[in-house]
């Protein structure tokens, strides 16, 4: 809440203006029933001049009130929009600083729901909430003052239904919100089921699960119907309740007030004024009850947003401008061990942490090429993540030019070490902008050159708009191999001092991989290069090859040395040659 108040404080003058307009709206609005009373009294006393004067006043109050209402509503609502905008920006700015451990804990779906639904709830609280909290009490004070001055007895009798309305509304709106949340979840579950069944349609068809899936779907729909109707049951009460309260109040005025008129305690004008006041109070009173639950929900949502803000990742990036560091390019993993569970609190149930890497000591001299091979899960990618500080070693340290990378500015480190990650993640933007992703100022010629080296020329020639073709969501319109080559081009445009390829070409055939690696090798000649591959056959020219097996270095040396050993590497190499041979035919 404190955080939210800081945002609100930023717009205090606009809020002040909005609230001022609100007060004017309420005052002018409450003046009208009083004027109606005077008009009726004037009619009763046959006073034309007085009537004409009052009618003019009503028109003036209506127009002024309309303008004030207009301002108050959009000024206050737009403050809400502004705060929402700022909060959203700040959340995003914070999110880009958080490291992979955060994203492992909170999934994209959950984060999205916070940034969409919770943010909306907060905005409603500060928009509708402020408006309703300022208008309604004032309207009550003003109208009660007038009504009490006209007839205290009638006032007390006639506002009784409103007290009931207010408390019932307060209770109802809470269960309405709970039930609408459930309806939202219900349709969400239906969407997820459709998504799942149709993504796995090949399994559905192959195992003749159509009926099975349909029956599960029907069940979900039944549940959703129940939720929908549960909501309808109480929502249906809402409007009659409000109208009912107003009408009940009117009825009390009519009967009890009528008796008072007959006894000449009050005038007919007073009676009409009472009726108008009560009708005018119906909606604001309702919305106040509603607003209280808005406030409660908004508070809970703000708490969920605060949870994001309170996360400080271990690898929070500093605002250091991300300049490429001047390095010779010597990289060393110095007796590094790493466990994914070591720095995770609460999961340590006494068992020794399972190490993904154990006692890795590897040095890559400037300009050399290191190859890391091994099976899936051997720890290859973990070594790469350590080098970019996506994770930090449990034991030991990683150095560049002899300096512990934790002592280097993080932005500078990442500007210096360029990675082509295993999963070719692209963004729904043009091909050119995907290539220039890490260097927005890259010239078109540089982009084209990068694409050329990555072997994309013939692919681009086939695309409708060449480099300006928009790739679908997450690069959906490209094949796996094309995506991987775009990520290579992206790295080339980034132009890092140290190049890391993390099994970057697994989806292209061996021949293409070899060709791309060769042209890549020429354009990054002289730079330290680290290549991770599960294919032994594509790394034979490396200066140094290490074979990882279950987190330890099982073999190391040059291709020739390792082949002579006839160990794991030689086995892998032969197997792959054969399988390639088989699939190549």
């Amino acid at each position, binding site marked *: 809440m404190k955080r939210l108040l800081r945002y609100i404080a930023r717009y205090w003058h606009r809020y002040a203006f909005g609230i001022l307009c609100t007060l004017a709206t309420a005052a002018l609005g409450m003046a009208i029933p009083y004027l*109606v009373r005077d008009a009726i009294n004037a*009619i009763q006393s046959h006073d034309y001049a007085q*009537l004409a004067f*009052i009618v003019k006043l009503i028109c003036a109050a209506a127009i002024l*009130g*309309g303008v004030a*209402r207009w301002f108050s*509503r*959009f000024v206050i609502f737009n403050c809400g*929009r502004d705060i929402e*905008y700022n909060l959203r*920006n700040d959340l*995003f700015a914070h*999110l*880009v*600083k*958080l490291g*992979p451990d955060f994203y492992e804990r909170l999934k*994209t779906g959950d984060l999205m729901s916070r940034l*969409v639904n919770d943010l909306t709830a907060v905005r409603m609280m500060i928009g509708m909430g402020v408006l309703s909290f300022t208008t309604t009490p004032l309207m009550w004070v003003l109208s009660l003052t007038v009504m009490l001055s006209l007839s205290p007895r009638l006032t007390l009798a006639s506002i009784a239904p409103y007290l009931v309305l207010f408390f019932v509304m307060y209770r109802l709106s809470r269960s309405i919100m709970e039930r609408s949340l459930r309806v939202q979840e219900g349709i969400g579950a239906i969407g*997820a089921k459709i*998504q*799942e*069944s*149709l*993504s796995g349609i*090949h*399994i559905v068809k192959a*195992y003749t699960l*159509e009926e*099975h*899936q*349909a*029956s599960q779907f029907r069940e979900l*729909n039944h549940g*959703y*119907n129940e939720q929908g109707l549960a909501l309808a049951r109480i929502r*249906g009460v809402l409007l009659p309740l409000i109208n*009912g309260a107003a*009408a009940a109040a*009117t*009825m009390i005025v*009519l009967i009890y007030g009528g008796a008072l008129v*007959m006894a000449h305690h009050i005038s007919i004008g007073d009676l*009409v004024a009472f*009726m108008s006041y009560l*009708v005018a109070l119906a909606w604001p009173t309702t919305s106040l009850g509603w607003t209280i639950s808005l406030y409660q929900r908004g508070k809970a949502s703000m708490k969920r947003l605060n949870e994001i803000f309170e996360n400080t990742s271990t690898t929070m990036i500093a605002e250091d401008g991300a300049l490429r560091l001047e390095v010779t390019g010597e990289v060393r993993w110095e007796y590094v061990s790493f466990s994914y569970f070591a720095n995770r609190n609460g999961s340590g149930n006494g068992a020794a942490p399972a190490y993904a890497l154990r006692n890795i000591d590897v040095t890559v001299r400037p300009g050399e090429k290191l190859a890391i091979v091994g*099976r*899936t*899960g051997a720890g290859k990618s973990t070594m790469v993540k350590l080098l970019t500080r996506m994770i930090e070693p449990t034991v030991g340290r990683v150095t560049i030019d002899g300096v512990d990378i934790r002592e280097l500015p993080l932005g500078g480190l*990442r500007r210096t070490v360029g990675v082509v990650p295993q999963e070719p*993640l692209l963004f729904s933007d043009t091909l050119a902008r995907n290539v220039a*992703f890490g260097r927005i100022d890259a010239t078109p010629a540089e982009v084209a050159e990068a694409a050329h080296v990555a072997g994309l020329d013939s692919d681009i020639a086939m695309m409708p708009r060449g480099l300006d073709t928009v790739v679908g969501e997450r690069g959906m319109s490209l094949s796996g191999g094309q995506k991987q080559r775009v990520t290579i081009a992206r790295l080339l445009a980034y132009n890092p001092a140290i190049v890391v390829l993390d099994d970057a070409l697994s989806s292209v055939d061996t021949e293409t991989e070899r060709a791309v690696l060769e042209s890549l090798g020429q354009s990054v000649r002289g730079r330290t290069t680290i290549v991770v591959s599960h294919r032994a056959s594509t790394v034979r020219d490396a200066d140094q090859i290490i074979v990882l097996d279950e987190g330890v270095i099982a073999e190391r040396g040059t291709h020739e040395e390792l082949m002579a050993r*006839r160990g794991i590497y030689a086995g892998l190499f032969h197997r792959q*040659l054969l399988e390639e*041979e*088989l*699939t*190549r*035919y």
Partner: protein
Amino acid sequence: MEVGREEKLARVRELTLLKRVWGFVRPYRVPFWISVILMPLNTMFALSQPYLVKLTIDLFLDPRHRPAPAWLRPTLHAAGAHGLLAMGTLYIVMLLGEFATFYGQFYLTMMVAQYSMSDLRTALFNHVERLPMAFFDRTPVGRLVSRMTTDIDAISEMVNAGSLTIFNDVLKLFTIVVIMLTFNVRLALWTLCAIPPLLIMVNFFRVRARVVYREIRERLAALNAYLAESLAGMSVIQLFTRERESRREFDELNLRARESLMLANIYEAGLFSWVEALSSITIAIILWVGGGDVIRTLISLGTLVAFMEYAQKFFNPLREMSQKYTVLQSSLVAMERIEALLQEKPIPRPATPARIVDRRGSIVFEHVEFAYRPGEPVLKDLSLTVEPGQKVAIVGPTGSGKTTIIKLLTRFYDVNAGRILVDGVDVREWDLTELRRTIGLVQQDVFLFAGDILENIRLGRVELDDSAVRAALGRAQALRFIEQMPAGLREEVHERGANFSAGQRQLMSFARALAYDPRILVMDEATSSVDSETEHLVQLALEQLLSGRTALIIAHRLSTIQSSDRILVLSNGTLRESGTHQELLDRRGLYYRLFELQYGAAEPAE
């Protein structure tokens, strides 16, 4: 002329769409018509209240007492001195009537909308599930999800709020006008003066708001899409130190969204305030014109008050009508999209499926031709035979048509020429369900459903009990790792099986096939390498899976290839070499060369 015809066509199209919707509402026509009847009743109850107020004022409060209307006299006579209370009771009756009819109408329409749209959704799901694979190749799943959720919601809104309440609104307005005219023509006409400025403003805002709302939808969608993509690709953003640029881009989208949202607020607040102001001005007019009439005793004071109350009830339906028209429009657009989906043709099924006499599990491809896209043939004149009980391995480069063979066999697609026989019968003449019950499929990427392990093996066949599932998992070598899990068979499977390793998923897919127990097994062997222990388990499980079945395997492992009865070497959609392991060796062709290479690998280095 042309425009007129087009409009007529659009009308006809709209009518067919509405008929389609009605088809789904029809089963619930009883509550539907009840709710339709309740609507005018509700209007009647609501509109009687100002009239009662008028009578009360005229009969009891105005010093110039007027005679009561004939229908009320007996009641008042009976009430005697408690005339005022009698009026109050009448008022309460009307109020309760309004309450009950509103609630009934609201709940019934909600019920009809909920049930009929749930039926539509289920029908759509059933339909889509049975569409051919080619449909899914060209349709992103996300689009289908929004057809069945967002679009149906739009139609639902029309069913429960849009369509019929419009008639009720019109009826309500009409009734109010008639009541006012019967009270006093001159005052009624003056009161109605408020309508043109109201309509002009509503229209003015509606036109602008429609543009802004479309903008809002687009801009929010862009903003959220960018957000989702950034969250999913955060590691790339950070690795390429693009934080600042991403923030700038996000801010730009955020700003654009805010801009339209704020504009919408200005319009909305404007319309709202205008309506409020106008209703107060109308009261002023009534007081001015009517006040004079009261003074000249042309009308009663009660009539004046009733006019003010009726005028208040005038504005809401007018304001809402334009809103409802928009709902109607958007739901028609949604229905049109759904209609297009319903028009997609499912896989043709034989009118009378052939009876399968010989059930031993043979496969024959006879001169099969197939292309996903015209002019790009994938299989060319392919013929092959798999005898019952044989295990056949297919090898060949990517794009040689290996996977296509599997897809044709299970009738995911139909051949362009030639035919495929399973147990001697053309697959197109098989009962589709029976065909797929006969052929078990194990695919490279294992798809697991969210749920638990048990459900994922059973796949809806309740007759498989725990012990049967356990047996299948045991034979698939998967029982050991599953029993180590806290919940065992009931261990939760996350979306797409994300909480299991590739190897574990593969073993589970074997267990699934074992539980399915098909006569023919078709398998696309996984290429991804797994750790050595799992690799061993996979080998064992594979033996179990293949025993006693006809099997067609797209093989990637050398061991699988060697242990098969026959090997088919595929290239460019045609069969290049075929034979048993020994035959191929004797032929001294490609296979021989491969085998030699492997043999050479065991020899001392060159």
